[in-house]
């Protein structure tokens, strides 16, 4: 993961609102995207992530607020005059043109000679691994090839920002995973700011330097993938990115950067206010959260690294390399999801088995 804090700002949103009639699609977006960053807009469908991307490209106007690209207010500047290029979800490859005509489409007004342009097209095709495909008809390409043509067509113009609208959603799983790695490499190679819209949290985690998680027209959290996963600000973010278990809890004492809570099933724990407590302060109860892989079932002869609780196995889902267990901690009403790596010689437990659960207070998160 690259450190991005010292890089100059490429895009800035200042209190951006967007209405479609009565519908409030963007509700006060404030964010900065650094130059050379791989940035993702992540959220469920209808959260406004594509709308936000299209305000950068210039396909959507905004109702109020300011969008700055490279320090310049882009209000009123049409898409053809913005230093951004886009890879569309449908790829939008021109079906009546060949691959090289598609890739060279944006060079029409380029003052370079024909030969120079042809060389640029060849280089762009080589960059996306499509050398020799130039003369092919665009409508005869496979999904993966179209995607590459769309990338080459956008990157040939050397934009300051490349916008990617769910570019991998139409590909099958294997191809998608390959393209994720290729896109990361490509981004490092060209050094351009990439902004990716996706609803796939795994894709966002794998590819991004930073991620903005959006719900209902607002950015719920903007962080690097690790922080987002480890210390989500709200339960909604925690649930959208991976799985998180929640236990009702009560604050016992607070002070000197520490919080002591009494959590159902886990008992009393002391948490670090800086590293483990998240969300706005609210009166009343709080919630303790932990990820499935941070707690473990203790088998015969294993000792808890830290703390230990008793639980009953309620559901077993076998995935080959992993087994997911739903276990109910003694004294709680909801089952917790644990994910265990299957190792040689370790049995898969049956439903109803009593099990010791090992966990560490350091892996817990407290939501106020």
């Amino acid at each position, binding site marked *: 993961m690259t450190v991005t804090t010292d890089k100059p700002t490429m895009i800035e949103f200042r209190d951006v609102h967007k209405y479609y009639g009565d519908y409030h699609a963007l509700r006060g977006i404030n964010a900065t995207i650094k130059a050379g960053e791989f940035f993702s807009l992540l959220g469920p469908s209808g959260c406004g992530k594509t709308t936000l991307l299209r305000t950068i490209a210039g396909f959507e106007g905004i109702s109020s607020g300011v969008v700055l690209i490279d320090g310049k207010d882009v209000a009123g500047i049409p*898409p053809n005059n913005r230093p*951004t290029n*886009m890879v569309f979800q449908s790829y939008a490859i021109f*079906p*009546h043109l060949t691959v090289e005509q598609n890739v060279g489409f944006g060079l029409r007004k380029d003052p370079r000679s024909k030969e120079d342009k042809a060389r640029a097209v060849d280089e762009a095709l080589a960059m996306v691994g499509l050398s020799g495909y130039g003369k092919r008809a665009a409508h005869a390409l496979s999904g993966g090839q179209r995607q590459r043509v769309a990338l080459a067509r956008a990157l040939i113009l050397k934009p300051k920002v490349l916008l990617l609208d769910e570019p991998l959603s139409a590909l099958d799983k294997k191809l998608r995973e390959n393209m994720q790695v290729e896109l990361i490499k490509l981004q490092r190679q060209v050094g351009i700011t990439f902004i990716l819209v996706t609803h796939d949290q795994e894709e966002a985690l794998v590819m991004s330097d930073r991620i903005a998680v959006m719900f209902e027209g607002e950015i719920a959290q903007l962080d690097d993938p690790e922080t987002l996963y480890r210390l989500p600000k709200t339960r909604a973010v925690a649930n959208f990115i991976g799985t998180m278990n929640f236990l009702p809890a009560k604050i016992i004492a607070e002070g000197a950067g520490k919080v002591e809570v009494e959590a159902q099933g886990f008992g009393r724990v002391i948490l670090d206010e800086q590293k483990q407590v998240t969300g706005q302060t609210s009166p009343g109860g709080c919630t303790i959260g932990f990820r499935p892989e941070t707690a473990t079932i203790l088998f015969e002869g294993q000792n808890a690294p830290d703390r230990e609780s008793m639980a009953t196995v309620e559901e077993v889902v076998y995935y080959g390399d992993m087994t997911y267990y739903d276990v109910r901690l003694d004294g709680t009403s909801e089952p917790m999801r644990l994910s265990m790596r299957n190792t040689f010689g370790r049995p898969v437990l049956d439903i109803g088995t009593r099990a010791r659960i090992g966990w560490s207070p350091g892996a817990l998160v407290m939501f106020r």
Partner: protein
Amino acid sequence: MKLPTLRIYTIAYLIFLYAPIIILPIFAFNNSTAVAFPLQGFTTQWFGQVWADPALREALKNSLIVAVSTSVLSTFFGILAARASTRYSFPGSGPVLGLIMLPMVLPEMIMAMALLVVFLSVGIPLSLFTIILGDVLICTPFAVAILTSAFQSLDRSLEEAAQDLGEGPFSTFYLVILPLVMPGIISATLICFTISIDEFIIANFLGSGQKLLSTYIFGQLRFPKNVPNIMALGTILVGVSIALLSLAEFFRRRGIAKTGAKDTGGFL
């Protein structure tokens, strides 16, 4: 055994539909002025007479002027309407489009009479021009229907991609949209041409003394000795119509194949 009722019905229907048209070429090559069986032997003299008739040549020339003008104008208006209805939403777009399409189902007689009254009261003399105006009214709905399907099958993001790659609205239109809807445009032009060539009521009401093919043919039917000529002319017209409609359908289908869209019906 059960009677194949539906099959018999279909065959009878097709015979009823096409038998009269098959009669045309049969008598066009029949060596007799009487349109009656038994046939009297093969001849091509009627085609020669058709070609030699100066009045018919005049009518053909007029018809071509009208049909070409009508098809170009109707297609042009069709492009504007189809683009507006598929790309933009504006208050009243539904009713406006409905009104544009209305002449497709309105009785032509009514339209022709209404136009005649208007032309006469405004003081526009009847001429080929007034026929063209009438025909454009009839043909434009067909052009709109064909072109709307062509514009609808265009992926909106193609247009955005062209803009994103540096093109303004006009260059986007002629670099991307126009080539992709071109098969629809050709198809619409050909169909409008065919409709206009066949058009009788408008030509008869708004044509003043100017003869078009349709009104000429109608006039000739009064003279029994000219009937074989009409048969020959009819044969030529049927042949040309079929050729044009097939060409139109060919372009429509090729357009769909090219853009990879789904076929949503057509005229053939």
